[in-house]
């Protein structure tokens, strides 16, 4: 509807005083026919000829169809890429260990160890904002006993893994797309192939393992830090709660399923973040000027993939 109104407005602007438009007759035949048949009558008061340019219904369906196709192609590409990478990880685990193992260590250091200081800060902040918000509400109804279970629900099940995934995507995933995209554009990938080195094995496998391990470990640290800092902030707000009680609440709220699903979820986050970023960096031929566009797309898709995985796990929680 909004678009129609806009179209009317554009039409008024473009129509000349005598009712004729700048458009030549027959110049837009392909767009004109369906428009004239379906929609034009609704705008009889204005100069309908201009609507030949707008081509409302056709362009909507085209747009949606194109987006849908692109989406399906991307899903197909990502799936194939994920399978190829898994296959290479399994098949070539013994190939060139002396080259690949240091690369994996580098990537784990980059996606895990190097991010620890930032995660310490985020853990402090996360504990503060969750406790700060819940204490004020729970104290009002005298339900501070639920502090522990609130922390488990919010931090352990949702915010911890998702926040870690998004932060790693932002700090490491973007770097992957740019590095791989540049390497691809500069012909380094071609050079690897000419030397008989499998680019997936040399470039992707260490990154995927690095990010997967990194996301898993950082989530654990973030959750531990946030739970700890949560108590600190509760203590500072004079909530009458001993550390023993707090940790008892936490322990009671946690089940074995939390540990299992947390492990699965973080591994899935890490794996797919790495797959999405590496896919966009490596899987298609790039020119140097494409790299920035591809980076933006990879980050967007990375976030979407993370949210989708998260939604899948919520369903799992609800089912069990």
């Amino acid at each position, binding site marked *: 509807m909004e678009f129609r109104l806009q179209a009317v407005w554009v039409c008024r602007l473009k129509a000349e005083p005598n009712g004729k438009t700048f458009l030549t007759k027959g110049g837009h035949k392909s767009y004109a026919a369906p428009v004239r048949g379906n929609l034009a009558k609704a705008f009889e008061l204005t100069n309908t000829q201009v609507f030949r340019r707008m081509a409302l219904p056709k362009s909507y369906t085209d747009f949606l169809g194109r987006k849908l196709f692109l989406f399906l192609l991307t899903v197909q590409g990502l799936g194939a890429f994920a399978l190829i990478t898994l296959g290479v990880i399994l098949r070539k685990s013994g190939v*060139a*260990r002396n*080259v690949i193992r240091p690369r994996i260590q580098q990537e784990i250091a980059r996606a895990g160890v190097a991010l620890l200081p930032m995660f310490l800060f985020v853990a402090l902040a996360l504990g503060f904002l969750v406790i700060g918000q819940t204490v004020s509400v729970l104290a009002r109804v005298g339900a501070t006993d639920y502090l522990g279970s609130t922390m488990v629900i919010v931090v352990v099940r949702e915010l911890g893994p998702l926040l870690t995934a998004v932060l790693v995507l932002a700090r490491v995933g973007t770097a992957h797309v740019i590095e791989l995209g*540049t390497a691809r554009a500069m*012909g380094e990938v071609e*050079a690897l192939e000419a*030397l*008989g*080195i499998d680019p997936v094995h*040399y470039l992707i496998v260490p990154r995927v393992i690095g990010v997967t391990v990194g996301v898993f470990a950082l989530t654990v640290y973030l959750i531990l830090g946030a739970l700890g800092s949560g108590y600190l902030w509760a203590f500072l707000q004079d909530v009458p709660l001993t550390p023993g009680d707090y940790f008892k609440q936490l322990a009671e709220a946690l089940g074995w399923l939390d540990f299992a699903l947390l492990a699965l979820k973080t591994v899935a986050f890490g794996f797919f973040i790495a797959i999405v970023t590496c896919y966009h960096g490596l899987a298609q031929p790039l020119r140097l000027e494409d790299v920035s566009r591809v980076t933006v797309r990879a980050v967007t898709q990375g976030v979407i993939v993370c949210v989708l995985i998260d939604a899948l796990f919520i369903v799992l929680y609800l089912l069990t």
Partner: protein
Amino acid sequence: MSEKQNIAAIEMRGVSVATMRDLSFIVLENVNWSVAAGEFWVIAGQQHSGKSDFLKMTAGLMTPVTGSYKLFGMETRSFGEAELAERLRVGFVFEGGQLFNHLTIRENVALPLQYHRDLPPAAAAQETQTLLELMELTPLADITPPNISDNWLQRAALARALVLQPEVLLLDNPLGRLGGRHLQWWLRFLNRLWRGHEWHGGTPMTLVATTDDLRPWQGAQRKFALLHDKKFFPLGSWNDVESAGDPVVKELLAVPLETTI
């Protein structure tokens, strides 16, 4: 050994070549070409005549669109992991080097050796160092590629291609970006490789180089071919090149040397 020599190193029959970027865009059609072990071919062509794509296909980086291409008697269309050993008998020197920018020159040269023989860095050091000394690259060995000039990048690329001791060496426009002194060094070095370099145990190497300027390649023993208008024309020896009436060949002979400016 003798049986091996009877098989042509490169044998193309009716081959069409597409570009690396778009496999539906044909740059060369119906190439019939045969290279015996120990030959030195120079393939001339103007810019955008498909030299690079042709050479990349020859190296096995892409398959021919149509026709049959046999490398050491093996059909390249079916090349996979199992045929890696055959693939590695061909070395490739890219135009401009295409070195790995995040590694130093030394690491660049050592990488293929380490990867294929699964060596820790220390074990590959000796062979790498020998090659770096041959290329006079030792002072630059611990610098990353973006920080050194094109002249030296090209030599580093040569070292990287040679480290696995290939039997056939493909060079994509190796002289295109070189200064005068480097140009002489390259011509001398390639000749020594072709005749059998002592570093290589004196075994002669088969060489194929592309160029957009024929003049530096003057030499009776080399074989010449021309890429023009989507076609592959074998020209023969240098004498045939000089006597050829083809305007394109004349142009390639008369292109002023950019590098002498």
